[in-house]
């Protein structure tokens, strides 16, 4: 196993930039997720690592070896494709064994390794079937087996779960995490699904428009998105973003949004002043909007300092998920989604006053989209 290092990789297809100056280090034995919407360049990055695509500029290292000009067949990587790309004319056994045969392993060694890997994946009874006779989940396992059997330097996975039904996907998610742990292997996993990224990745990298937006631990990326794109892309329901101008009222800096005033923390206001920013986008995650505490409750818990904002509006849409409810509140002509406990049940048309604490307010410069403040 080895680390994989992307050094200032750029890729152009004709006039379009698929990747711009991507520098990333994937550590040895790490489960690393490349996350982004379709067309963001994540698959291109993976294919460049695999050697299926040549970078326009930059270098790629596996371990300490520069493989930029090494053909795919000699890179000693394994790839799992979105629709598996199993050889339809070969049995499961031959599919799994193919890479070993190409590398000239002895016949009995191949048989032993194939047995071992297929037993691990629970497909040992399917060895003589053709891919056409397998279910989606079984094909997925064969594709994994084909990758695992060679003990490659790293595993490259291109949205491997996207063709499975939702139940199977949840199951395979857990299995892949366990597999990566057991193999102590380097995984680079491409997905557009933030849930997969959050649940599986030890670290995630968010890409958009061919540019790296943020790299970090999933929780850090969620808690402190580096810019507005990351903030809105990660999280479900998506983060509420309200735009407004900076004002000073009663000695406090605040943003005047259509849904009301949002107070800016002291730490953030220092940054705002320093950068001469006049208008901001305010981001609030749905789960951080809570019904305003009653007078008595507020009095007892002095710690619940005055909220950064109160948003008042009518419940327009209530989606109950059983464990929680997503309530769309219309305030000042803007829709804001709040993630509330399932009880008490909110009726459509009810008036809600939702509070958000100062530490849960994210601020972004409207012009650059970059995060402002801590």
């Amino acid at each position, binding site marked *: 196993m080895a680390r994989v290092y992307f050094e200032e990789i750029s890729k152009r297809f004709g006039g379009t930039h698929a990747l711009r100056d991507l520098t990333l280090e994937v550590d040895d034995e790490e489960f690393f997720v490349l996350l982004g919407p379709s067309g963001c360049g994540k698959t291109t990055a993976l294919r460049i690592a695999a050697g299926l695509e040549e970078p326009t500029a930059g270098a790629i290292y596996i371990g300490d070896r520069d493989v930029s000009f090494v053909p795919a067949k000699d890179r000693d990587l394994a790839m799992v494709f979105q629709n598996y*790309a199993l050889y339809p004319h070969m049995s499961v056994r031959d599919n799994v064994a193919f890479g070993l045969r190409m590398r000239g392993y002895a016949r009995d060694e191949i048989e032993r390794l194939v047995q071992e890997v297929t037993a691990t994946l629970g497909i040992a009874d399917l060895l003589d079937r053709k891919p056409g006779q397998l279910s989606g989940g079984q094909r997925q396992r064969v594709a994994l087996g084909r990758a695992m059997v060679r003990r490659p330097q790293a595993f*490259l996975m291109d949205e491997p779960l996207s063709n499975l039904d939702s139940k199977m996907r949840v199951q395979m998610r857990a299995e892949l995490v366990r597999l990566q742990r057991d193999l102590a292997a380097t995984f680079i996993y491409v997905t557009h699904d933030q849930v997969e990224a959050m649940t599986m990745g030890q670290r995630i990298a968010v890409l958009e428009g061919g540019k790296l937006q943020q790299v970090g631990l999933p929780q850090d990326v969620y808690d402190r998105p580096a810019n507005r794109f990351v903030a809105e892309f990660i999280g479900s329901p998506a983060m509420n973003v309200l735009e407004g101008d900076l004002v000073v009222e009663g000695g406090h800096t605040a943003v005047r949004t259509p849904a009301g005033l949002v107070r800016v923390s002291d730490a953030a206001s220092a940054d705002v002043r320093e950068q001469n920013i006049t208008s901001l986008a305010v981001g609030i995650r749905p789960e951080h909007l809570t019904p305003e505490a009653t007078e008595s409750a507020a009095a007892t818990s002095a710690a619940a300092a005055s909220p950064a904002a109160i948003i008042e509006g009518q419940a327009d849409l209530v989606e109950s998920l059983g464990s929680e409810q997503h309530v769309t509140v219309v305030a000042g002509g803007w829709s804001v989604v709040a993630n509330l406990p399932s009880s008490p049940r909110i009726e459509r048309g009810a008036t809600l006053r939702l509070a958000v604490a100062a530490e849960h307010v994210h601020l972004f410069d409207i012009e650059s989209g970059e995060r402002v403040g801590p």
Partner: protein
Amino acid sequence: MTAAEGVARPGSLVRSAWRMLAALPFLLPSMVLFGAFVFYPLGKAVYLGFFISNPFRTRQIYVGFDQYREVLTSSEFVSSLLVTGTFTLYTVFPAIAIGTFLAVLANQRLPGIIVFRTVFSSTIAASVAISAVLWLVLLHPSIGVLNEAVEAAGLSRVNWLQDGGWAVGEHATVFDMVAAWFIDPNWALISVSLATLWMNIGLFTVIVLAGLQTIPEELYEAARVDGAGRWQQFRHVTLPMLSPTLFFASVIGMIFAFQSFGQIQILTEGGPVDASTVMLYSIYETGFEPPFRVGAAAVQSLALFAIMLALTLAQFRMLAGRVFYR
């Protein structure tokens, strides 16, 4: 209530008879066509084989199976079999191999590749007559380009269309003829085969190219990551995925070979002697040239039919198991 429902009620027998009756008008056009152009001539050929007749069949004598026996055991027939087999060998497999090679070349994503695809497949558009005349010039013993090339390569000139090799002269037995096959090249047949090969390459290139384009790119990518080089990708991905196409090509290629006529007529007229007389040409000579032995031609036609049927079935038997259909 319609008539159909009224009739259908009494029992399933009546119902199926009624359905049959309803199917008849739909089957009728093809039944008429097949009947008029396949089954009637087939029956007529069997019938004609029992008679010898004068040129316009104003008088005919029943000879029964004697004619079948006589034609099928004649040395001309055996010779035409060997010539046809050789011709098929020379034309079908080389054409498929060359067509596959060109198709693989033309299947790459390169600027201007469409020009090469067009050139490689252009022989489809040339008529048999024109192609044959073209080759007649190329193969000309004294002014032909081919002999110029042969001479430039330091070899002696070949009497392309006039040297019958093993197919000419006396051979005591069939075995002697087969023995001669290996040492004495039949240049006339080789010439005809060269022209036919050239004509067929375009078609096979197009067929194989179409087959290649149905192979998903990802399989090659998977093979590359798995460590397969160019040749291994061809051997383990392209060929098996192409097998239905190649099988189809071999069946129609064989049928084409058995049906070749125009180029033989123009280039050699079956000669010298019978050196390039394939079965079809022999049928033509027997039945449509004096003395118009229609009965004997009919017997040969039936033999050709039987051989083609048997070979096609054998191809399905032998190859079907190795062909991978998705």
